[in-house]
């Protein structure tokens, strides 16, 4: 017991939240625009159509590649799927005016164009599947609403669509009490610190649970590495693009526009009813950021056929699960109906 306590104290004392190497899977950047880029991960042998992944705009992309043996990306690449990952990057002060229209019509549209060109040259195909995680999935859905024929099939992972069921975040994001205009008008971008604090208070028991979990599983082989990788990623939050955040909060959390006539973006409506590509929704059963009901709500507004799968885990923990990799690979490699 005393030995464990000593080891535990040493581990905690020497641990640096920002000194842990994550996101180390070998890749090539095939396109850059402003702070965003497309990262390409090549399989040894191609067995399926290339997969375009839209990552969350609030955290770094490395959540999909935290550790070599617990990496969504490496798992998909090993399954023979060429992966193109849209890393939205870290917005700076000058990016505060960037709204959803610029992110979708300029960055994402162009990222997809370059991805298709790369896939055509490298794999002789322009067909793409798409996967969106968290708010990256909500935004991917909006893109599909604006450009309905973009993908062969689409998957959303822990991505809120029906914001009435978005748990405590929906309670907090009330137009009467949440001062989104004052925050964006004065800060420019939505500050990462504020976002991080709100996630901590979303479930206050998370912080003591985290340390309790570390203590209880301290002796388990590999657990220290997993814990450290998650903490390193979690402590490195990024700002949310200012005007894009204003639009996201007002149209999604305040008005749940996917369930009305669509999210208004650049004078058009991102209406999911127009999208006929098959959709697969993955949700985590213990997700308190995007509860399964918020993700599965997509089946009520998506035009094409929708399948829903609930996996065990939390919002972030699900990314470390081999079950997730298997489920996504099976979905991607499934022959067309």
């Amino acid at each position: 017991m005393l030995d464990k306590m000593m080891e535990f104290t040493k581990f905690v004392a020497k641990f640096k939240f920002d000194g842990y190497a994550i996101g180390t899977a070998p890749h090539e950047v095939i396109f850059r625009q402003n702070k965003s880029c497309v990262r390409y991960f090549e399989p040894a042998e191609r067995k399926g159509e290339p997969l375009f992944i839209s990552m969350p705009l609030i955290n770094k992309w490395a959540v999909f590649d935290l550790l070599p043996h617990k990496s969504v990306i490496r798992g998909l690449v090993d399954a023979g799927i060429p992966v193109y990952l849209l890393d939205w990057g870290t917005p700076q002060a000058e990016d505060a005016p960037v709204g959803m229209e610029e992110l979708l019509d300029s960055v994402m549209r162009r990222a997809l164009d370059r991805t298709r060109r790369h896939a055509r040259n490298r794999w002789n195909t322009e067909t793409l599947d798409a996967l969106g995680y968290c708010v990256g999935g909500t935004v991917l859905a909006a893109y599909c609403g604006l450009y309905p024929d973009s993908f062969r099939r689409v998957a959303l992972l822990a991505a809120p669509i029906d914001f009435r069921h978005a748990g405590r975040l929906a309670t907090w994001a009330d137009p009467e009490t949440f001062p989104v205009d004052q925050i964006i008008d004065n800060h420019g971008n939505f500050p990462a610190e504020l976002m991080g604090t709100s996630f901590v208070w979303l479930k206050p028991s998370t912080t003591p649970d985290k340390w309790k979990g570390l203590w209880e599983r301290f002796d388990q082989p590999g657990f220290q590495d997993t814990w450290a990788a998650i903490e390193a990623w979690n402590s490195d939050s990024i700002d949310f693009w200012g005007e894009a955040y204003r639009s996201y909060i007002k149209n999604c959390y305040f008005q749940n526009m996917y369930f009305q006539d669509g999210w208004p973006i650049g004078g058009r409506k991102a209406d999911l009813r127009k999208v006929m590509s098959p959709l697969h929704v993955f949700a985590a059963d213990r997700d308190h950021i995007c509860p399964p009901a918020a993700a599965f709500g997509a089946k009520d507004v998506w035009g094409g056929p929708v399948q829903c799968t609930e996996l065990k885990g939390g919002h972030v923990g699900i990314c470390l699960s081999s079950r997730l990799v298997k489920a996504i690979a099976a979905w991607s490699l499934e022959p067309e109906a």
Partner: protein
Amino acid sequence: MSEMPDLTKMSQQFYEQWEQGMTAWWDQVLENPAFLSALGENVANQSRMRGAYAKAVDENLTKMHLPTRGDLVRVARIATLLEEKVLTVEDHLLNIQDTLGRIEKEAITARIDAAETRIELREKLAALEARLEALEGGSPASSANRRPRAKKES
């Protein structure tokens, strides 16, 4: 002699009870409209203060004829918009490249078709010539009257 109490188990039970109590208490607080309203007002005030501070710093720097944060942000934004323009040009160039590639492919296909047609014609002509020579047999008169042979296409 009575057994020693299991301290690990006891501390675990204590933690679980504490956690349940705290969670229930925080659940009440964090969903209380009055608390959320006060919190929202607080965040709004802090944001306004930050905005006012940034504006005051910028005004002071302007008075000192120094570039402000706002100036630098504007320059960086202009650079981003310029990059957008460059990428738009790149879009056009890539589209032109695609079109040229398509045209080139079509032109090559057309040239192959034309070459194949010429080969076919040449083969037909050779066959006709062979038949003509066979019909003529060895007649020197008709051979002398024969029209000059069509010049072979190169």
